[in-house]
């Protein structure tokens, strides 16, 4: 139905897709998987006319096409349902459903009665019961997503692309969604389904394409692929692969006999985390393993007070931390190096000096006046200790390389003398040399008695850097790897494990 051949797309500095072949067939649900930056979104955007490919051909219904705008793709029968619902929140459900193709009466005016009746029928047909007169935004996110889906179906779409449609749905809604997808499949619609939830994929999809670093690493029927192989491909690892020690700059184990400094119990956030518990001792590096969307970053953010939790307790050195307040967490000695360094970490327009001193400012001031000599001393110490390469303390952080930005952030937190350091993807997007340096640093910090929680999509880094690994899946802890079990194989096995009480169909 819709296929691309030899597709390449380059953005300044990044090869997003290279020679990708992909075919979505009528009457099939085709899973598209891959970690962050693998090229899924780019591929989807090429398919739906948002981007134009540099090279390669898009064939639709047997004929080569070239969509210049998303609208053209839509009119041709390709519908997309994005993660965030892109409808008009203030308009009624019915109006959203018929947006741009409202039934007209005489005089060319919108025939509201007919529109409401047809909207109601369309939604009923999908097993959704909502009042079509209500504004869309009054519905829950799940219901909104169903409306988006109904819209896609109603426009006689022949290809439906869904980008992580279940990420904000209740189990019941997921069930309805799957029913609808199966119905679409029976109607001969080609469905492209993007998700990281292994169980969903195996329940729903017929074929699968795995992307990694902009290339297709596997494509074929899903039933023939076992879970472990799939996990291995998504992470870009081989099962049973023998590797020499010391590929990363981690030294291995640390002394871990002390009392726990961080204890987290029963962390729960609706739809995202379910009863996550873990603990870290001083001088220990605990890894958080799992696929994208398994709740690793959410766990770190919840511990750091940056994400409000429904239930759960965080205790640092025996003292409970007030939930939902970054300031309280920082006072308790928890520091978070966020995943999104550019938008949540650095202050790009401020100098290296300001960035390092930022969090520690109150401690470096007297009566609200900043003590510049002390700031200079601290900035100098950390620039030397972390080997930050900058033209000087007054250079803007936005101008530094990724690795040095990351070190500036580390310095910001170390200046506070934290007890617990949460590192979310500390080496992502930084060059090899800086990566090794950051890894060495993490090691040194743990040796100095810091408790470190490490999140990394780089499995090798995670395994070699951690003393223990807590494996998350769909927002819940599925296993904890300790001692000799801290291996890539065990990690992949833990992620691939079929949940208890469900059959692997």
């Amino acid at each position: 139905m819709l296929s691309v051949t030899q597709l390449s797309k380059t953005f300044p500095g990044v090869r997003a897709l290279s020679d990708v072949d992909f075919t979505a067939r009528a009457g099939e649900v085709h899973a598209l998987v891959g970690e962050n930056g693998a090229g899924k979104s780019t591929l989807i955007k090429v398919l739906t006319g948002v981007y134009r490919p540099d090279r390669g051909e898009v064939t639709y219904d047997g004929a080569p096409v070239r969509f210049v705008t998303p609208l053209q793709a839509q009119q041709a029968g390709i519908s997309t349902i994005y993660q965030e619902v892109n409808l008009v929140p203030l308009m009624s459900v019915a109006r959203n459903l018929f947006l741009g193709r409202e039934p007209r009466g005489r005089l060319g005016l919108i025939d509201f009665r007919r529109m409401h009746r047809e909207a109601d029928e369309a939604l009923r047909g999908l097993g959704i019961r909502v009042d079509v007169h209500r504004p869309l935004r009054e519905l829950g996110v799940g219901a909104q997503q169903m409306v988006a889906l109904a819209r896609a179906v109603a426009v006689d779409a022949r290809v439906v692309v869904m980008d992580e449609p279940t990420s904000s749905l209740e189990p019941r809604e997921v069930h309805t969604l799957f029913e609808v997808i199966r119905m679409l499949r029976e109607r001969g619609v080609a469905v492209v389904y993007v998700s990281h939830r292994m169980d969903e994929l195996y329940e729903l999809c017929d074929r699968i394409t795995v992307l990694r670093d902009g290339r297709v690493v596997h494509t074929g029927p899903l039933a023939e692929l076992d879970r472990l192989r799939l996990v291995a491909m998504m992470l870009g690892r081989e099962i049973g692969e023998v590797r020499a020690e010391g590929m990363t700059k981690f030294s291995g184990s640390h002394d871990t006999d002390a009392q726990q400094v961080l204890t987290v119990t029963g962390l729960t956030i609706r739809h995202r985390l379910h009863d996550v518990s873990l603990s870290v001792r001083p001088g220990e590096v605990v890894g958080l393993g799992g696929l994208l969307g398994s709740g690793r970053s959410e766990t770190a953010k919840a511990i750091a007070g940056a994400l409000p939790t429904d239930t759960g307790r965080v205790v640092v050195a025996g003292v409970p931390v007030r939930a939902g307040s970054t300031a309280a967490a920082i006072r308790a000695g928890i520091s978070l190096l966020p995943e999104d360094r550019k938008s949540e970490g650095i202050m790009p327009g401020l100098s290296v000096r300001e960035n390092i001193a930022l969090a520690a400012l109150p401690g470096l001031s007297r009566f609200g006046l900043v003590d510049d000599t002390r700031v200079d001393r601290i900035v100098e110490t950390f620039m030397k200790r972390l080997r930050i390469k900058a033209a000087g303390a007054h250079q803007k952080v936005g101008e530094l390389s990724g690795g040095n930005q990351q070190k500036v952030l580390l310095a910001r937190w170390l200046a506070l003398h934290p007890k617990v350091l949460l590192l979310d993807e500390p080496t992502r997007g930084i060059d090899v040399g800086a990566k090794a340096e950051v890894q060495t640093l993490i090691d040194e910090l743990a040796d100095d008695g810091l408790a470190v929680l490490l999140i990394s999509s780089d499995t090798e880094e995670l395994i070699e850097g951690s003393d223990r690994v807590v494996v998350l899946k769909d927002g819940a802890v599925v296993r904890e790897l300790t001692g000799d079990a801290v291996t890539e194989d065990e990690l992949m096995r833990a992620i691939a494990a079929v949940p208890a009480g469900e059959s692997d169909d």
Partner: protein
Amino acid sequence: MTELTLGRGTPDRARLLRLLQDYGVYTGVLVLLLFNFAFTPHFVSAENFRTQAVQVAPVLIVALGMALAIGTEGVDLSVGSVMALATSLLSLYLGYGPWTAALVAVLAGAVVGVANGALIAFVGVQPIVATLALMVAGRGLALVLLPQLKDVHDPDLAALGSGAVLGVPYLALIAALLAVLTAFVVRRTTFGRQALAIGDSRPAARLAGLPVRRVLVLVYVCSGALAAIAGVLATARLAASDPTSLGSLMELSAITAVVVGGTPLSGGRVRVGGTVAGATLIQLLTTTLIKHDLPPSWTQIAQAVVIVLAVYAARERGRR
């Protein structure tokens, strides 16, 4: 040969642009001064400079508060109404003595700032909308308190409005003092640093554990209080309270001064010196055109040109 010029041309142009961004506003002031020295009769006189300084003082004081708000990636549209509110309260409470009345006026400005800040920081309303609400409400309240123009007869206020020490008008002195104070707050205090960090990246500031809400409220309190001070001084100079027209369009003049002075609207940076120069530049521009008998409409067009130039320079900075 061509390569050589090309290779040298680009960085030169970039450097020129950077110089323009950093010193353009000062150069503008200098050029206008030189032009007036040469071509405007009676420009070089102590009396003229006093007049200019007295006229620019209220705008400058308001612009200082505006620069703080803009530095946090916000804006304060309520400043003009705060001036009106200040003038109403000043004449209402004049019976308790001029200093008590002035204090009440400034406190009212701070209260408006608290309202602005609370809407922005706690309720999460966008600054432009929140302060727009207070702009409408403030002017309305000012008119309720004092429905029409009223003369203000008070020797102390009159002295404040037209007096001088060593030939420098009080108004200019106060404005200069407040400018120095603002610069000090921005550069040297925890509050100033935190405000800039919030302006540069709000999510990062929150994750870094900064008291984002408290700082934002304080920024708008400063802006409100400064606007109220400007209102009191303007009343003292005019020897009259006119809540209908005092401070009207002041928010736009203040934003102009701040933007022309090189403070980016995207936050994270406050240029106090630039703001002073920006206010001065607009003042000189107006004077120059008036003294050469050009109609006021020309002034507006000239202002527009300056704003466009300033924004153009800022845009280039954003790209780099």
